[in-house]
């Protein structure tokens, strides 16, 4: 009785939900692919800030070598010991630059980190949209059908004696009842596996749709404003018309003065050289390598902006298609928009990846040179 009740509860609940509107398998797969494509490429919007630091510091006499971070206090004390005020002043400036540099590096890391919660959410979205649940369901129902068939195949052998009884005209009613029971079980079993699979699948699909609808609808406004904020930050660095002196206006950077080549500077050079500091592009201005890196960083920033905007659009279309009946006409139109935007996102992301690769190569080349 307990077993019968258990089966009954499961199948009745499956029947109740099977009629609700759900996403098709193709729609589920495309959401899963969307998630997979987004999470495959880690966007790094902070790169543009990092590159900006490099450009900004070209304007100045010294840049702290990030690979060999010096003990600035020691250097300052050494400078003070020489009694050279201007050197002390320069060291103080250096400390100030270093603090600013660090603040911008932290900002770059924080900007990259903002995308992490979005990534976590998208990965989970893909997990819920994944068709693996149904594959598991298929395995279960197949197991059920095969166990039913195995059990039923044994029944006729066991009732051969009952058949003999019927042939003998004896205990006809009892034997006929046995056959009737066998026939009923046979009929039920032939459909049971299929019913379990289809109802189970419909139930799971309906639950998946429900979970996705709730999550995508609730997260869409947040995703939209987060992306707008990120694009706004990237605009500071990539928009030449912003008139805020950043990497976007790198062409305005001119070689720094050549006049400070006095004895003091030579002394300073000797001191900083021994302390692990490097002179930046002193007297050089923009080198061709730096210019290449800047161009790549700006291109990466622009491509990242486009990829983020395409992602925002795709997510918004997905939310709208889920708010409508996904299988209805309006839902289908919005779903088609989602597919288009998701495709654009993939293309933009490929571009981002290309710039990232080139930038990495440029950095490696520079490292090898050093």
């Amino acid at each position, binding site marked *: 009785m307990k*077993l*019968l009740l258990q*089966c009954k509860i*499961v*199948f009745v609940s499956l029947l109740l939900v099977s009629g609700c509107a759900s996403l098709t398998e193709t729609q589920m797969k495309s959401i899963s692919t969307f998630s997979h494509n987004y999470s495959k490429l880690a966007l790094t919007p902070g790169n543009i*800030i990092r590159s900006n630091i490099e450009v*900004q510091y070209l*304007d100045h006499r010294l840049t702290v070598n990030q690979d060999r971070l010096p003990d600035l206090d020691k250097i300052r004390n050494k400078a003070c010991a020489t009694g050279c005020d201007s050197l002390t002043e320069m060291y103080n400036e250096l400390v100030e*630059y270093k603090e*600013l540099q660090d*603040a*911008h590096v932290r*900002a770059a890391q924080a*900007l990259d980190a903002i995308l*992490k*919660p979005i990534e*976590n*959410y998208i990965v*989970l*979205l893909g*997990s*819920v949209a994944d068709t693996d*649940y149904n594959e598991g*369901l298929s395995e279960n*129902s197949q197991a*059920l059908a095969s*166990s*039913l068939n195995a059990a*039923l195949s044994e*029944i006729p052998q*066991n*009732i051969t*004696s*009952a058949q*003999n*009884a019927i042939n003998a005209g*004896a*205990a006809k009613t*009892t034997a006929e*009842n*046995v056959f009737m*029971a*066998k026939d009923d*079980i046979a009929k039920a079993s032939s459909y049971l596996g299929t019913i*379990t699979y289809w109802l189970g699948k419909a139930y799971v699909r309906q639950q*998946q749709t429900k*979970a996705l609808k*709730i*999550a995508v609808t*609730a*997260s869409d406004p*947040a995703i939209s404003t*987060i992306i707008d904020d990120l694009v706004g*930050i990237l605009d*500071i660095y990539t928009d030449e018309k912003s*008139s805020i*002196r*950043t990497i976007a206006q790198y062409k305005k950077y001119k070689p720094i*003065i050549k006049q*400070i080549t006095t004895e003091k500077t030579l002394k300073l050079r000797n001191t900083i050289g021994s302390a692990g500091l490097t002179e930046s592009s002193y007297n050089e201005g923009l080198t061709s390598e730096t210019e290449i890196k800047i161009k790549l960083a700006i291109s990466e920033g622009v491509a990242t902006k486009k990829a983020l905007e395409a992602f925002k659009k795709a997510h918004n279309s997905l939310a709208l298609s889920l708010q409508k009946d996904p299988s209805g006409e309006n839902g289908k139109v919005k779903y088609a928009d989602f597919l288009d935007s998701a495709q654009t996102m993939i293309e933009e992301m490929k571009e981002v990846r290309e710039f990232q690769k080139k930038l990495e190569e440029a950095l490696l080349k520079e490292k090898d040179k050093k």
Partner: protein
Amino acid sequence: MAGSERIKIMKVLTKIIDEIDELRENEDYDYPAKKNLNQCRQKLWIMHQSILSAELDERIAITKAKTKSLAKIAQDLKAADERLNGVAEKISQAAKAVDKLVEMTKKSVELAATVAKLATTLKT
């Protein structure tokens, strides 16, 4: 300081820095004059970078706060994911239950067959 004010100040500073850059290129200025210009430029640049840093910090903090709602949604999705896995498990259990049911029915049929056989024997 509001974000828009920071941007305005940065724009003004940028303009001044650009003007200084042009003055620095003037051959008529002697070394002390250029040195002063440079010092002035350095100070302005530090101010510009500090304001930019503050602007970034504020914008990032605001955006970061917005991601908190996503964390809650992600939690709900995780729960839904676990629930769906639970559904598959329940169906598996149902399959096992039906399996047992079939086994019991099979035994009932066997019993009925034995009864029928017994009835035949008794009649003959």
